[in-house]
């Protein structure tokens, strides 16, 4: 019995490390930044960082559910661009109509992905790759291939300046969205079904779970969140350039993976994705600080290399831990 207990404790230690590895790295980098740069780093800089992160985080939140269900959504960057374009174009009507329109456009495109994947049973990779190309073309057509500038006055422009609880409102919104996402995953039948479908679609179907509906909903949700992310960007910066959203899908996937969600589906955590998003952005932020102190001189090209290297490191660590679990944790027959 003691041995069994020891086994369970050790297994859960390994699990905890795997689950919280990204969080530990995040805390370490935060402490490093605060110690090294002091208030310049801690105060406004972090608030701005979070406000900036909000749009990526929303995309990554949708992506988390898609990946947990065993799929992938490559279209989020293009959908965000289109959402930003329509939001900027409708910005004269005020914040709520502009944001609402962006969400609706995203929802419609996500639903289209969802129908093709869940009902027509096409491969998510192909469907969303087609959407990545097609939707970007649509956005460029709407924007006439030029940056779309939001109207100069009104509630839309004020969005970026609002604060709530001492934080930029977009950051507050981001935290709220993740708390809701985590609750949906843990406490609703939909959340458990997403994991079941990602874990074994055949088994889920034979259990009578609504497989098609669940898959449809995750893509629709991912589209809506991407549209909203585009609106965030438009409101924060006042304009949407034509290269918006390029590579967002990959950053989102990176954040999801860093957070410990398995790309094969069936296992995942919502809050860890948030940690992953902030962590990846923080690395950029720290490089900027190091550059500004003159301690190092790293061009923006190298930032990408460092981020890629970091991602690889995290994945290696995860694989190592999960292999250790797999070889030791399963009951030998």
């Amino acid at each position, binding site marked *: 019995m003691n041995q069994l207990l020891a086994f369970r404790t050790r297994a859960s230690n390994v699990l905890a490390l795997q689950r919280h590895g990204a969080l530990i790295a995040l805390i370490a980098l935060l402490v490093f930044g605060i110690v090294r740069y002091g208030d310049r780093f801690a105060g406004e800089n972090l608030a701005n960082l979070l406000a900036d992160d909000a749009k990526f985080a929303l995309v990554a939140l949708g992506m988390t559910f898609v990946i947990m269900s065993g799929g992938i959504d490559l279209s989020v960057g293009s959908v965000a661009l289109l959402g930003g374009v329509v939001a900027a174009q409708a910005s004269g009507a005020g914040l709520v109509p502009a944001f609402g329109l962006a969400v609706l456009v995203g929802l419609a495109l996500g639903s289209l992905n969802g129908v093709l994947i869940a009902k027509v049973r096409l491969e998510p990779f192909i469907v969303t790759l087609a959407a990545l190309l097609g939707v970007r073309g649509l956005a460029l057509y709407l924007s006439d291939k030029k940056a779309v500038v939001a109207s100069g006055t009104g509630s839309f422009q004020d969005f970026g300046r609002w604060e709530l609880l001492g934080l930029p409102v977009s950051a507050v919104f981001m935290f709220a969205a993740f708390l809701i996402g985590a609750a949906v995953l843990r406490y609703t039948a939909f959340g458990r079904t997403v*994991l079941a479908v990602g*874990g074994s679609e055949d088994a*889920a179907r*034979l*259990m009578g779970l609504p497989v098609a509906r669940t898959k449809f909903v995750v893509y629709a949700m991912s589209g809506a969140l991407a549209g909203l992310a585009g609106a965030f960007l438009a409101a924060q910066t006042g304009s949407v350039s034509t290269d918006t959203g390029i590579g967002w899908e990959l950053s989102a996937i990176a954040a999801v993976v860093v957070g410990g969600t398995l790309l094969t589906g069936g296992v995942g955590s919502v809050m860890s994705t948030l940690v992953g998003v902030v962590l990846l952005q923080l690395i950029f932020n720290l490089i900027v600080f190091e550059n500004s102190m003159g301690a190092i001189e790293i061009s923006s090209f190298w930032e990408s290399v460092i981020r890629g290297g970091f991602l690889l490191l995290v994945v290696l660590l995860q694989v190592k831990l999960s292999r250790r679990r797999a070889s030791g*944790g399963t009951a*030998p027959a």
Partner: protein
Amino acid sequence: MTQSSPSPPLLDMRGIRKSFLGVPALAEASFQVNRGEVRALIGQNGAGKSTLIKVLTGVYKADGGTVTFDGRPVAFDSPHAAQLGGIATIYQEVNLVPYRTVTENIFLGRERRRFGLLDWRRMNAEARELLAGLDVHVDVTRPLREFSIATQQMTAIARALSFDAKLVIMDEPTSSLAEHEVSVLFDVIRRLRDSGVSVVFVSHRLDELYAVCDRVTIMRDGRTVDDRAMADISKYELVSKMIGRDLAEVRRAASRAPHQAEAAPVIEASGLELGQALRGVDVAVRSGEIVGLAGLLGSGRSETARVLFGADAPDSGEVRVDAEPVRFAVPRDAIRRGIGFSPEDRKVEGIIPQMSVRENLTLALLPRLTKAGIVDRRRQQQIVERFIERIGIKVSSADQPIRELSGGNQQKVLLARWLCMNPRLLVLDEPTRGIDVGAKQEIQSLIRELADDGLGVLFISSELEELVENADRVVVLRDGRNVAELRGDQISEERIMAAMAHGAAVEAEDGAR
């Protein structure tokens, strides 16, 4: 290779210890195989058979003990090294590449070459020859996935044989083979033995052990408990050594209860047709009745089950629930009418490996546990605890991932999944496959108990003994058609086998329609 004197065994494993995160899987296990011998290795799930084999073949590294193979101490550090060292292993699940041809699957990793290029003609010829020795005659240039599981299994065996191994390990090689394929395999095993090759044979089917093995090693709780000549040990003794207790009680539990006379059928299917698989199947199950569905592989057993559950739609034929015609588009429709289904391939279609026992047990029930989308976790916990207790599922906690459980306990979770929904009919496709004898008896008694409480059960099994012991009525299928229906005293292994093999309805009055 040094050739040592013939007296010492080919393989001698002594004092093998292996723990996983502090939990011992092997404790001082020993295992000997003589030259030119067929050795049975048996034990319940969790007894340590697989771990022992994996230590030998380099999948795991032992914590202690010595392995001597062919006169030399060895410690293979990978399955590849073991293969090169003269040990070939055939696993229970086919581990091949489905999209590549039969030939490629046999020669992958050591392709025959000519002038540095692949010599396809020679490889195809050798593959054909190897398979012909196994009485399998197929187009070896076709992708493996086009063939039946049995042919795939035979291909795996051919691959292993082509290594010219000194020791061939077969881990439940017969679980996906039909009767005549099993007898072909046994011929191959005997031929191997006569040519001096030793075979380790792992199986849960006792008849097979007696048919082909010379000696048996029995394991329990990570230890070797006995090593005897097959001829010196009775089936009864074998089983009781394996599970470590007297069997009288479980035997009685499995004896047949008087079966329900003529209650109205819960489900009744007639004239089911589906492509080549089903060409007119009739089957009915009454409340409180266990109906066995027998037939060789490909006879349409599993297809019938899937149609009844709405997993596949039939081309034609009618299904009636409570005398009312139904058309199930998806399994959910069948579940709503009170039908549960435990699929043949537990690992792929049954469990969701990463999820906990709690989740696996209650996923199908979620719609009824949910208010406004929110899961009532307290009720969920109560239900899970009740069924773990009632069915006797061995778990450390409800949160344990189901993949960590033994096959028997996984199957119990799957049964509980349906039982907590109060079904009227359970369709069980090979519910005891790959499960040790003790758990098997427990599951069979549980099924009988449930039937006595009024549940209808359609019980599919390739083990005739199991059907004879448990079923009130047995429907035999052959090539997608009913060929016989046996009830009560008519049910015997011989009659079922005759119907499966020859399609003759024997002298059963209630035979094929």
